[in-house]
């Protein structure tokens, strides 16, 4: 038996023994996730146990080095773990911006002390992180940020305002872009700092979205004291960290839509809702045409995702290709949800109890943000034109 086979056998057994029954329902949505942190209220004892057990092994972050609380697994082992979890319908034990965003940043740019300090807490779900990038009136022009961090000897004094901070009202710590040099041109003079959301001078205000939910906040900093030890990488070089993470984020968002081509096709949904004509075709030829056009693009996009992923596995560096995925994936997702609404018709437009409180409509509305957050579609196209196609500046 190869090492990997043995690992698989052991993993399977461990999961069988340790994954609580109610964590095996295969649910992977944002709503059913465990986000962890100081304020987290577990939805069940099973959810608590599952985080505790997986966190203890570092399997919440399987490929992080074990000295930082990670699982220390190889890519192949991590893939096996994922497969075995999927096989029993295990939920992810833990979702956290600390896992998806801060971790990669610290692993690449953080000091040894910072890694030791922050990563294990992320792994065990003790600290929930949020991201402080966007500012009012900046929008896609991230680098024009105005939140300033003034040098006060051993610490900075941070003053300013962020917007679109995901769940800032529920997070414990923030990783944040601040301006440390107001003279320097836009991209220079920015630093990447970490601080506790319970620091004096921090306040948050949830933003109500068109979908009715409030996953984002406005976040205000009024003279927040941030120890210099919490500066990641070098002063005025925060843009490098941010850029690295942005690319990372775009790939993530893009590949989120990779799952699109799986599961029930739009056509199946439509046949169920609308029925077929005597020729066996969906009984609305124009809707059928729209569906198949979109399904063609979805399935075709799936091939690109696979190709990019396989090239990445082959060691190819992707760079601006993440913008290709982000752009197309989010636009496609918007089209798919428009069509889902059309399939359901007025039934899906009701916001009533017997309609799951209009979840389909809320999802539809939510997709409109996909092509705005993490860099608008327009910004992605600009990146492709500039960095891949090398088209001339205006």
């Amino acid at each position: 038996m190869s090492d990997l086979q043995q690992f698989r056998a052991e993993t399977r057994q461990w999961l069988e023994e340790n994954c609580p029954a109610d964590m095996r329902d295969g649910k992977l949505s944002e709503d059913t996730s465990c986000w962890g942190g100081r304020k987290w209220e577990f939805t069940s004892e099973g959810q608590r146990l599952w985080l505790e057990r997986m966190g203890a092994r570092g399997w919440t972050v399987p490929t992080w080095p074990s000295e930082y609380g990670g699982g220390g697994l190889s890519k192949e082992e991590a893939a096996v773990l994922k497969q075995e979890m999927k096989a029993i319908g295990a939920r992810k034990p833990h979702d956290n911006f600390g896992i998806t965003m801060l971790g990669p940043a610290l692993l690449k740019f953080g000091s040894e002390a910072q890694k030791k300090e922050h990563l294990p807490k992320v792994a065990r779900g003790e600290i929930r992180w949020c991201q402080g990038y966007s500012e009012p009136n900046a929008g896609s022009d991230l680098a024009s940020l105005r939140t300033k961090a003034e040098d006060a000897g051993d610490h900075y004094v941070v003053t300013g305002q962020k917007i679109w901070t995901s769940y800032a009202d529920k997070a414990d710590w923030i990783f944040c872009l601040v301006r440390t040099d107001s003279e320097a041109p836009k991209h220079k003079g920015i630093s990447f700092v970490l601080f506790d959301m319970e620091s004096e001078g921090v306040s948050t205000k949830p933003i109500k979205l068109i979908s009715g939910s409030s996953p984002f906040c406005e976040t205000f900093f009024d003279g927040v004291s941030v120890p210099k030890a919490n500066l990641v990488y070098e002063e005025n070089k925060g843009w490098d960290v941010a850029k690295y993470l942005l690319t990372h984020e775009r790939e993530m968002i893009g590949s989120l839509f990779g799952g699109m081509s799986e599961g029930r096709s739009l056509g199946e949904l439509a046949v169920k809702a609308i029925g077929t004509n005597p020729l066996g075709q969906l009984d609305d030829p124009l809707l059928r045409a729209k569906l198949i056009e979109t399904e063609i693009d979805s399935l075709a996009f799936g091939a690109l995702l696979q190709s990019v992923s396989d090239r990445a596995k082959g060691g190819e560096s992707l760079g601006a290709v993440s913008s290709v995925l982000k752009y197309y994936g989010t636009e496609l997702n918007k089209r798919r949800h428009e069509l889902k609404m059309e399939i359901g018709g007025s039934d899906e437009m009701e916001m009533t109890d017997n309609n799951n409180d209009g979840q389909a409509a809320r999802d539809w509305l939510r997709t409109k943000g996909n092509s705005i957050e993490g860099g608008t579609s327009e910004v992605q196209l600009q990146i492709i034109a500039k960095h891949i196609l090398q088209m001339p500046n205006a």
Partner: protein
Amino acid sequence: MPLVLTEDQEMLRESAAGFLKDEAPVSALRELRDSGSEDGFSRELWAKMAAMGWAGILVPEEYGGADFGMVGAGVVAEEMGKQLTATPYLSSAIMAATALNALGSQAQKEQHLTKIAAGEELFAIAHDERGKHSTLGVALKAERMGNGFRLNGAKTFVADGHVADQIIVSARTSGEPGEANGITLFLVDSGTDGLKIEKTAMVDSRNAARIDFNNAEVTADAVLGEIDLGADGLEKILNAGRAGLAAEMAGSAAQAFGMTLSYINERKQFGVAVGSFQTLQHRSAHLYTEIEICKALTLKALQSLDEGAEDAAKLVALAKAKATKVSLLAAQEGVQMHGGMGMTDEFDIGLYLKRAKVAGELLGDSSYHGNRLAEMLGY
């Protein structure tokens, strides 16, 4: 007839625009929504509109109406669309008045038209029975019972259903769903035994209801038009509604575009006005073109109804199909061009998106009318 408004119609537009801006701006819809208004519209405001002649905009003068024709009705609908004004206008003033004008007996007209014009009686058209609209897909059963009928079945997506005093119901007295023959229209008091009316909150915060009919009994007097031969009349009612709705949507599209344009022309990014970016300029110019087309087409459809033109049904289907696409495009582009702000409930553009989707579905979406058009054109 020239494809322009007459002087009278132009005056009507101006007075409607002014009134609605003052009395029923978008913030009024927000208030209805946020206060959890049970009615879903302001009765006080509706009384004012009735006083201005809008409730009776299609009612003949002998019944106290303004008799402004479909073009006039569309002009007001378009202005309402701009402000997303929530009123029983489409159901009562346009569709019910059309129904009674076209099909009502002398007694029915006398009983209802004056009240419609006065804004005293509210109507709803209960027609759809599932999530997708269909003109002839009527299944709700009306069985003869003595001198009257017994109704059994369920209607959905009934605009203003839960506030209506009277409900015009399409029912099947013979034949199968999908067949024209066998459809009969009934005028049913909403207090009739056997009706269960449930308000359904829609994503656009406008009124709709599901109505169950459980052995609801009506007399023969309740028949509107002829027994079994209601399809033509039904089509007339629906077409008046579709054209009015297209006008409303053209108005919403124009307004959504206008507010987006103001936003991007003012908002700065990378040191310049967002509206100076060439891509947004070209997309705006395209959208403007589509909206102009939509407005011209809608007017043509309204005119054709007033003229009783042969191609009226075709033009109405065209107008509803086009308005459905254009108003959705205007709202989608609006949200995207507003950027993150477009995703917040604080900004109005999201309300236009929601209304575009619901109004698009109401009385048939672009696929539905596209299919009908292809059939009318022989393919």
